[in-house]
């Protein structure tokens, strides 16, 4: 059985794919078509791919409007052996990734990685942020030293530069 929300999502996804296909098609059609000996230019394959995407968008739309997508993934989490969408968990993982983006070039790789680790652990149900953060620092530090000292890959040292010395970038 398909829930009302599930039916709506299928329509949204189908329209989204179709829109992306049409947008790509318009962009592809504006590309030059001169192609030398082959007679086809840099626009040929883009037009074909964009048209293909638009066609599958229509196909998804037809399936969604005629009884729903075939062989669909169940809308009921328990049928998939899972629990209902847990928004805070999703938000914690997202927050960790955004915190890392924000801190990478200020606090440096190690601290950004530690915060990411703690946030993700929190998202997966851990309730001991201090312990998780400590593990994150140790893991981040190990990765940092391996990459910077052993592989010569530059990673930002950030606020830990006084401790880590001239390592990193």
């Amino acid at each position, binding site marked *: 059985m398909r829930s009302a929300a599930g039916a709506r999502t299928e329509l949204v996804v189908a329209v989204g794919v179709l829109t992306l296909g049409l947008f790509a098609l318009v962009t592809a059609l504006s590309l030059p078509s001169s192609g030398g000996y*082959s007679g086809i230019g840099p626009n040929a394959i883009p037009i074909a791919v964009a048209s293909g995407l638009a066609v599958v968008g229509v196909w998804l739309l037809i399936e969604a409007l005629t009884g729903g997508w075939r062989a669909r*993934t169940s809308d009921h989490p328990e049928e998939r052996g899972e629990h209902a969408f847990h928004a805070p968990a999703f938000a914690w993982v997202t927050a960790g*990734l955004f915190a890392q983006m924000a801190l990478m070039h200020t606090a440096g790789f190690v601290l950004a990685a530690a915060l990411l680790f703690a946030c993700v652990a*929190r998202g997966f149900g851990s309730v001991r942020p201090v312990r998780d953060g400590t593990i994150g620092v140790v*893991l981040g530090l190990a990765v940092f030293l391996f990459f910077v000292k052993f592989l010569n890959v530059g990673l930002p040292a950030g606020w830990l530069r006084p401790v880590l010395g001239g390592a990193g970038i």
Partner: protein
Amino acid sequence: MTETLDALLSGFAIALTPTNLLWGFVGVTLGTAVGVLPGVGPALTVAMLLPLTVKLDPTGALIMFAGIYYGAMYGGSTTTILLNTPGESASIATALEGNKMAKRGRAGPALATAAIGSFVAGSISVVLLTLLAPIVVEVALRFSPADYFALMVFAFVTVAAVLGSSTVRGLTTLFIGLLLGLVGIDETTGQMRFAFGVPELLDGIDVVVLAVGLFAVGEALYGAAYQSRVKEKIERLSGSLMMTRDDWRRSWPAWLRATGIGFPFGTIPAGGAEIPTFLSYAVEKKFSKHPEEFGHGAIEGVAGPEAANNASSTGVLVPLLTLGIPTSATAAILLAAFQNYGIQPGPLLFQTQGALVWGLIASLYIGNVLLLILNLPLIGLWVKVLAIPKPWLYGGILIFATLGAYSLHQSVIDLVTLYVFGLLGFAMRRWGFPVAPAVIGLILGPLAETQFRRALSISQGDPSVFFTSPISASLLALTAALIVVPWIVRLSRRKTQPTA
């Protein structure tokens, strides 16, 4: 024949140097670990390590990546048997009997038949690869660009439309992957395509960001949202690992039959080990003298699928190395690793990079032996790895995932793109869109376009070239049949049924 033997022997000379032996060992150990860990697969692991190719020598790096690739097949069985959550579709068949055996206190023999079966199937398959590769190369050297293009189209359609539960959803992700592959500067004409003036897009979408975003970030978001509060039960590994005389008697024919099923399935561009593992399961059920045990922990039901899984994953290397056609997500990322070194897998690889490719093949023989040792006497270690709490596991995965994307250009922009692809991966997972066609489309798409334009350049713009070459024409006809026949069958079935 003697030429092949000579080439293989010189390959062993390369694979057995201390450095390459070490890379092989690192690869199979890492592979087993990521196979054991739920949520991490070989495609993701190799993708995260791709930025390292700048620092490593090609032979060592590719030996390590190949080790990760088939090491993961060994490790995956441990998780499936003890945890009953198959890490990938290829392990579902094993889960049917393996976890039942573990519940009955027979985890030891189940793990043993999986590991030894993987070794037997893997070793026979590497021999088959050694013998078959030079023959395929001979044939492939005669392929024209039109033939290559047709072969790639065939691979796209089988991977996207034939495998998986829904043709249209497979094609959707394939076209998204192809579209992402077009972003950037066109190599032939220098024309900017789909870059919208954004300088970061001129070089195109990096496979590391796409694959790591879809697999790691998407998987972490999905796992947190839908699975983080589910309690899992790990079966204890109690008692002996030893297989009884009866276990051996029932296992070895299954290993051999499964090798015969798995290897050919791997070599045709119909990638993925899902079909051969289920086929092997069905065959064992039919041939078994104890069909009543199936569903309650029949050892043949573990021995067969696990061997088929390994045989087919080795088979996948035949089209990858000899034709340059990847038929699974991991194979596509391995292809990207070759490309990072400016090497294009294909028939010419055996001539221009003979030392590298035969060293790689020889390393597979060595790797199978290493994996047997790693997965039998040391199995207790991997059971401990399996017990890593999920919060730390996913925290660690995301540290390495973001590290892989960040170290490409030392740029936070890549982390933003990574998150966007993570959201895409989350949505694809939730609504049942397969990930592999997107990755294969991104990597193989640009190669297909090059062959297409080359073919038309040679024919001076005459499109009939795709239908006058017998190889190209038959491949394209076969491709069309794969899409059209299921439709006709469905329509005719609807007609014969009375409309109520």
